[in-house]
């Protein structure tokens, strides 16, 4: 532990948080744009400062694609009245948004988003129990929602909170079980090691496709995204756990949801799609030059953005599950499927050895 380590860690931390926040802001825009396209609309295309249209080439793009919309949204959230309804449990009401955001941001810490640059590994914390860490943090994400539901002291948020606690516990099991084949195949919990294994043997999605499907669907459920967004179901619970929230506190819940999306896309890329590696152009080994390092980061970002788009796309493609269907899918489809998957993988590995 020395000076260098601290400085570089802080720099990486700042960059990661900045990038994740930027991604969150623009994924809100992407959400609105993609939903608009799917529904034959144009989407946000107004928001631009007056000078933007005079920029030569980028001008029309900046103005027509609503590139300043996240900025406007952020400003709007910040300047709205911070309203506290009467009868809420004040302390939890204020704490809940923060508790929701913290785990969402923490998950990114163990994800290797690039190989090396100079002598710095492009990962914030190279833990030996990386996957377990991620699951632990993800499981903490439910507190924000449950407390928000409890603090609001009103029926719908309460329902949202109770639903989310049951849903998240159920799907955590399926999610954890789905990753075990990956761990069996690789034989290591370190995310960096998993990536380097994939660089040598090919992406894990080819070895464990069922695991990937279960993981993906469970992560939809864990992030409360649409086929499983029962905790916030607008049409039945008028917004669920964040019904009573407004202004920046509501924005924090938004931030948490989208950060969760970012981190679970990153997890999917890392676990099943080779992380920062690509099987061609010599991109599958640790970088030797600065350009290669940047290329690795870009590869990772592109893969992650693909999954972000899938997340958003699914939201506008499928209707919400009913609660019993959700539980049925989690316990009676995915759990046995994941167990069988583990068994088959173990058998396959045993036959090979």
């Amino acid at each position: 532990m020395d000076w260098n380590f601290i400085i570089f860690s802080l720099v990486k931390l700042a960059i990661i948080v900045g990038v994740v926040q930027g991604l969150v802001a623009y994924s809100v825009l992407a959400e609105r744009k993609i939903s608009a396209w799917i529904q034959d609309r144009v989407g946000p295309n107004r928001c631009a400062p007056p000078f933007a249209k005079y920029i030569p080439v980028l001008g029309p793009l900046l103005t027509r694609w609503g590139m300043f919309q996240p900025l406007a949204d952020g400003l709007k959230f910040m300047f709205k009245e911070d309203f506290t309804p009467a009868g809420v449990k004040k302390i939890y009401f204020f704490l809940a948004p923060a508790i929701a955001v913290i785990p969402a941001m923490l998950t990114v810490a163990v994800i290797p988003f690039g190989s090396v640059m100079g002598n710095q590994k492009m990962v914030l914390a190279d833990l030996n129990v990386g996957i377990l860490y991620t699951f632990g943090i993800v499981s903490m994400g439910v507190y924000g929602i449950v407390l928000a539901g409890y603090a609001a002291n009103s029926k719908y948020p309460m329902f949202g909170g109770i639903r989310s606690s049951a849903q998240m516990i159920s799907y955590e099991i399926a999610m954890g079980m789905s990753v075990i084949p990956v761990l069996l195949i690789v034989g290591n919990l370190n995310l960096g090691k998993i990536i380097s294994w994939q660089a040598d043997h090919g992406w894990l999605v080819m070895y464990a496709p069922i695991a990937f499907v279960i993981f993906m669907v469970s992560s939809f459920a864990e992030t409360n995204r649409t086929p499983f967004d029962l905790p916030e179901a607008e049409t039945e619970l008028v917004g669920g756990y964040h019904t009573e929230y407004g202004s920046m506190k509501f924005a924090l819940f938004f931030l948490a949801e989208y950060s969760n999306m970012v981190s679970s896309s990153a997890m999917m890329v890392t676990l099943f799609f080779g992380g920062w590696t690509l099987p061609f152009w010599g991109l599958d080994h640790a970088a030797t030059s600065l350009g290669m390092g940047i290329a690795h980061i870009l590869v990772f970002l592109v893969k992650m953005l693909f999954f972000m788009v899938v997340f958003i796309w699914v939201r506008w493609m499928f209707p919400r599950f009913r609660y019993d269907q959700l539980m049925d899918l989690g316990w009676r489809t995915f759990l046995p499927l994941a167990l069988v998957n583990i068994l088959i993988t173990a058998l396959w590995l045993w036959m090979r050895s």
Partner: protein
Amino acid sequence: MAITVDRKPLTFWEKLYLPAIIGGIKVTTKHAWNTLVKGKVVTMEYPEQKWTVPDHYRGAPYLVKDQEGHTKCVSCQLCEFVCPPKAIRITPPGDAGAKADRTNAEKMPAEFEINMLRCIYCGFCQEVCPEEAIFLQKDYSLVGTSRAEMIYNKEKLLSLGGVSPGIQKWKLKLDEAKAQENFPVKL
């Protein structure tokens, strides 16, 4: 007694969800392609493109003038009486007030105000008006920066309303009178 609805058991493919997923992908991709590449959108970009209002559209009520530019309203206050949200407020000219600016009417309102924040565009005023002086026209986006600004006075209503096209209620009677040559008012 509760009615139980028979549900067909799902077939194997329906249970697998996969065809539904593929169908969803197909539909959404088709729409996104149409919007993005072919530029087919169902929405309009409002301030630039505007909706063409159909003929019978009931927008904001305005006062109209007749062909000679005279006020048609005779301050009978029927519209004020019939207005459900009480948006209309008419000040009659009174004894000392200005008389009508046209020859075949006794008086015209000293002030005629419509509070556009209250108006519900029901069209009762148009229906009730014996002089056909008020018409619901095609404006639908009325904006202002204050509540006071949204109370339209007589001048504003008249200038917005314009000349009533082709309607001259007294024309028939005028013709009859001319024919009999005992019409009391000199034209």
